[in-house]
C-alpha cells in the first residue's frame, strides 16, 4: 500500500471522530489530575490512544491539535511546546506499529521511548526559546545540573528525563487499559487494530 493510500486509510471517518474525543480526554483528564493534585500530567492519554488505533500520523495530528486548542482555551504559552505533543503521538504510533503495544511490559517500553523523544524535543524548545530556563520545576533541576558543571543542553535533557518517564509510562498503560476495555468488535473498527491484536 502506498504512503498516500495508507494515510487515507488511517484517517478513516472513525479516526476523524475519535480525534476530537481523544483531545478532550487529554484536556479533561489533565484537569482532573491537576485537581487531585497528583504529581503527574497525564495530558496525552488521548494522543497515545489515537496513535495506537489509527497510526503515527493520526497520533501526530492529535497531539498537535490538542496542544494548539489547549493554548487557545487555557494557556497561550503552551503553544510553544506543540512539537513535544506531536512527537508523543508520532513515537507512540511508531512503537505500536512495531508491536510494542501488545503486552503490558512492551507498553512500558513504549512509555520510556515516548518520554525519551518528548524529553529531546522539550530540551530543544527549552534551550531555543528559553535558554534552558523555563520557570517550571524542571528548570530547577536544570539549574542544579548546570551549576554542577554539565553543559546546558545535557542538563535540560537530563532534567526532563527524570520527570517524563513516569508520566509517559502511566499514560501509555492507561491508553493500553482503555483499549483492553473495548470489545474486539469495536477495536477492529479502527484502521490500525492490528497494533493491539496479532
Amino acid at each position, binding site marked *: 500500500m502506498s504512503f498516500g493510500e495508507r494515510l487515507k486509510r488511517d*484517517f478513516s471517518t472513525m479516526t476523524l471522530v475519535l480525534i476530537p474525543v481523544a483531545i478532550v480526554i487529554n484536556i479533561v483528564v489533565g484537569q482532573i489530575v491537576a485537581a487531585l493534585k497528583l504529581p503527574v500530567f497525564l495530558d496525552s492519554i488521548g494522543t497515545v490512544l489515537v496513535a495506537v488505533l489509527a497510526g503515527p500520523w493520526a497520533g501526530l495530528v492529535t497531539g498537535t491539535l490538542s496542544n494548539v486548542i489547549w493554548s487557545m482555551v487555557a494557556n*497561550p504559552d503552551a503553544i510553544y511546546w506543540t512539537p513535544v505533543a506531536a512527537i508523543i503521538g508520532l513515537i507512540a504510533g511508531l512503537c505500536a506499529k512495531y508491536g510494542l503495544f501488545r503486552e503490558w511490559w512492551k507498553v512500558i517500553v513504549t512509555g520510556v521511548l515516548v518520554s525519551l523523544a518528548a524529553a529531546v524535543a522539550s530540551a530543544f524548545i527549552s534551550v531555543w526559546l528559553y535558554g534552558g530556563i523555563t520557570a517550571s520545576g524542571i528548570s530547577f533541576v536544570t539549574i542544579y545540573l548546570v551549576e554542577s558543571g554539565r553543559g546546558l543542553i545535557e542538563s535540560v535533557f537530563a532534567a526532563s528525563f527524570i520527570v517524563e518517564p513516569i508520566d509517559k509510562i502511566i499514560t501509555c498503560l492507561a491508553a493500553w487499559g482503555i483499549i483492553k476495555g473495548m470489545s474486539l468488535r469495536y477495536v477492529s473498527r479502527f484502521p490500525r487494530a492490528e497494533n493491539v491484536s496479532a
Partner: protein
Amino acid sequence: MNETIGLYIDRDSPLHRLNPLTKVVFTICIVILGFISPWAWITFAIPVLILIPMSFWGQIGVPYLRALLKIVVPLALILLVMQSLFLPGETTWFRFWFLSVEYESVERSLTLVSRLVSMTASFILFLFSTHPSRLMTDLTRRGVSPIVTYLFISTIQLIPLMRTKANTIMDAQRARGLETEGNIVTRSKALMPMLAPLVFGSLVDVEERAIAIEARAFRVPGKRTHLTIVPDSQAQHLFRIALIVLTVVLIGVRLWLSLTS
C-alpha cells in the same frame, strides 16, 4: 454566537471585522519580526506600540491589558530574574551571595523574554479578536481541507460538554463515598472511578457519530459550496501582500547585517 469560545471576546469592532487571514498573516509577521529584530527593545516595543493600541481599536483594550498582566508579565519577570542569574556569561555585573549576574546573561535574557512577550502578546490579541468559526470558515473557503475544520471546531464544541459530564461523574462518585482528598494513595485511587465512565462513555458514541457525518456526505469527494462567506477587501489583500513583502525584506536586511558584522 452564544457562548465564549476559549479566549475569544465578542465585540463588533473594526479589528473583529477584519478578515481572519489578514489577522493570521499579521500575527505571523509580528512573530517573525520579533525573532529577527537585532535589539530586545525593538521587540519589546511591538506589544507596547503596536499591539496594545490595536487592542483598543478592537474595543478589547482593558481585557487585553488585564490578560497581559496576568499571563505575560509575571512569567516575563520570573524568566528575566532566573535567566539573568543562571544563564552562562563572562562579565560579572554584580554578585549576590553565591549567585552572580553577568551582562551577557541579562542581554540574552532580555532577547529571549522580549521574543516570548511579543509572540505571546500577538497570539493573545489574535485569539481575543478572532472567532474560531470565522477563521475556519474563511480558511476552508480558501482551500484548507474541511477535515481540518471538522477536527478543530468539533473539538472546541466538545470541551464544554465533556466538562459538564466530568463534573457530573465527579459529583456522583463523591456522593457514593469516593475520597478525593487525603494522601497521594487515596487521591490516586480516586482517579480510575472518575476517568473510566467518562472515557468509555465518550468512546461508545464514536461509531454513531461517524455514521452521522458520513450520512451527511462529509466524505463525498467533489467541489464543496459555502453558506457563509467571510468578507474580505482588496485593501486587506494588498495589506497582506505588503506585510509579507516587508517581512521578507527585513529578514534579508537582518541576514545581511549579521553576515557583514
